[in-house]
């Protein structure tokens, strides 16, 4: 990367942790075999896969056999939601999710709507939070699936997964959680959380891109998304990418070791950033002012156009709205759902911080942001003279 760039887009993707990169290199050169192959080399790769599964199982506090390898959270979400909805279709065709979910959840439910399912789209409060009471009120006799994300990718809201899950258990409703922004970043103990399906992706926590996992609690069964071959108990066919899986396992292991330090590092940086920006006139925080995930700070500012702000911020690499839809200029639907106007949503900038972010990076970010706002405001016509 051009050395003058400052990367504050860790929620979009992270670099490989050096141990992960090293682990993958080793597997690529010494154990690149097909874990399904019935020979010594294949078994070497299979052992590596099993070892990685054990690492991920430890991170989530689950048993090894509850985890499937996928190509990422998008696939995990599709598999979980489509698979559960179809499997329990007889139980009812009512599904519940939130308006602030990631597209990889929203668009799956939109598809199911076209297939004859009925979806209730809950709106969270202005912090992005959904109370379990709100959820309970939305449940019906024919509700069979609820999908609520763990950490919001745009504004950092951490949902009350335990509370929402309990409500689902009480009503015998399958509960899926999109944990793409949470796994490996905050403690996720699936032995105690009442969650049936949990999606994650390695590249959000310093693991490789192109690999993720879906946790399927014991006793839960879903229809597969793909067919072919007997890998992964026929639930997800395809040659296992042993190096990617090893990388995910290593990233899980690193995350377990460093999670506490990561969180305090991020909290300090977020505080520094929040303080540095707070004196800007017309600045507001999108999302929770307290209690949110410390790696994400989303701010908007009055009377500044979003695209120009983003351009003026270069060499800061930050996001407007979700990384996944930042190529389009539509105002973020997440910000709209928590009550922002189109205009407000347009000036939103998501700073997402990570392990390699330094206080110097934050200082630079603050001063670039202040400058950019000043400059753009100085250009703004008041009104017709």
């Amino acid at each position, binding site marked *: 990367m*051009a050395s003058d760039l400052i990367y504050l887009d860790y929620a979009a993707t992270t670099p490989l942790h050096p141990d992960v990169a090293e682990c993958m290199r080793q597997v690529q050169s010494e154990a690149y075999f097909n874990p399904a192959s019935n020979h010594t080399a294949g078994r070497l790769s299979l052992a590596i896969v099993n070892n990685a599964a054990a690492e991920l199982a430890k991170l989530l506090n689950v048993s090894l056999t509850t985890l499937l390898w996928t190509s990422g959270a998008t696939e995990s979400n599709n598999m979980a939601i489509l698979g559960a909805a179809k499997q329990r279709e007889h139980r009812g065709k009512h599904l519940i999710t939130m308006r602030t979910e990631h597209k990889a959840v929203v668009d799956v439910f939109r598809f199911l709507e076209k297939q004859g399912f009925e979806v209730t789209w809950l709106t969270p409060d202005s912090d992005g939070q959904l109370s379990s009471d709100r959820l309970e009120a939305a449940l019906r006799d024919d509700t069979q699936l609820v999908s609520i994300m763990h950490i919001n990718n745009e504004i950092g809201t951490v949902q009350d997964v335990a509370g929402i899950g309990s409500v689902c258990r009480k009503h015998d409703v399958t509960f899926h959680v999109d944990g793409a922004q949470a796994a490996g970043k905050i403690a996720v103990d699936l032995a105690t959380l009442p969650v049936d399906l949990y999606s994650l992706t390695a590249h959000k926590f310093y693991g490789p891109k192109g690999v993720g996992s879906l946790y399927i609690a014991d006793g839960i069964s879903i229809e597969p998304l793909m067919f072919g071959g007997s890998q992964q108990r026929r639930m997800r066919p395809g040659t296992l990418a042993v190096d990617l899986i090893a990388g995910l396992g290593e990233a899980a292991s690193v995350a377990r070791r460093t999670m506490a330090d990561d969180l305090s590092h991020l909290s300090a940086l977020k505080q520094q950033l929040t303080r540095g920006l707070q004196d800007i006139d017309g600045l507001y925080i999108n999302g929770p002012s307290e209690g949110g995930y410390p790696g994400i700070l989303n701010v908007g500012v009055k*009377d500044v*156009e979003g*695209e*120009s702000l983003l*351009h*003026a911020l270069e060499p800061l690499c930050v996001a407007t709205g979700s990384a996944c839809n930042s190529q389009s200029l539509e105002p973020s639907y997440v910000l709209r759902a928590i009550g922002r106007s189109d*205009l407000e949503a347009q000036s939103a900038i998501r700073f997402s911080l990570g392990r390699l972010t330094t206080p110097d990076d934050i200082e630079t970010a603050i001063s670039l942001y202040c400058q950019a706002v000043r400059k*753009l405001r*100085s*250009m*703004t*016509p*008041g*009104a*017709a*003279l």
Partner: protein
Amino acid sequence: MTESPYNLAVRDCFANPLHVGDVVGGVTAYFDDQGMRIRISAGIVDRLMAELRFRAWGCPHVIAAAELFCRQFEGRDAQDLEQFAVGSIMHDLAVPTEKTGRILVLEDTVRSLRVAINDRLIIKQD
């Protein structure tokens, strides 16, 4: 390899706008559409647009377009505004076609500026 969505001209006009401001006592035109807002003011000396200033609220293309307009027409005869063509600005700034509507806001502003200057000149001639 790093392809910016803004060409060199946009980046220069955006980073170093030389014409931000207002000409106090000058002729002014303002337009507001598509969420974009542009104001241009001209200081007229003997039919010449001796000074052109702009303010704009919009994406980098809109800001750069306003700045480029000022760079191109400052010092020229007010008549020359007839030659102003959105097409050439779009081309110089490689504006993506989906943003055409935004650049038309500049066209509207320039047209209204021309009218205002003509009005002023007519008044003066009277």
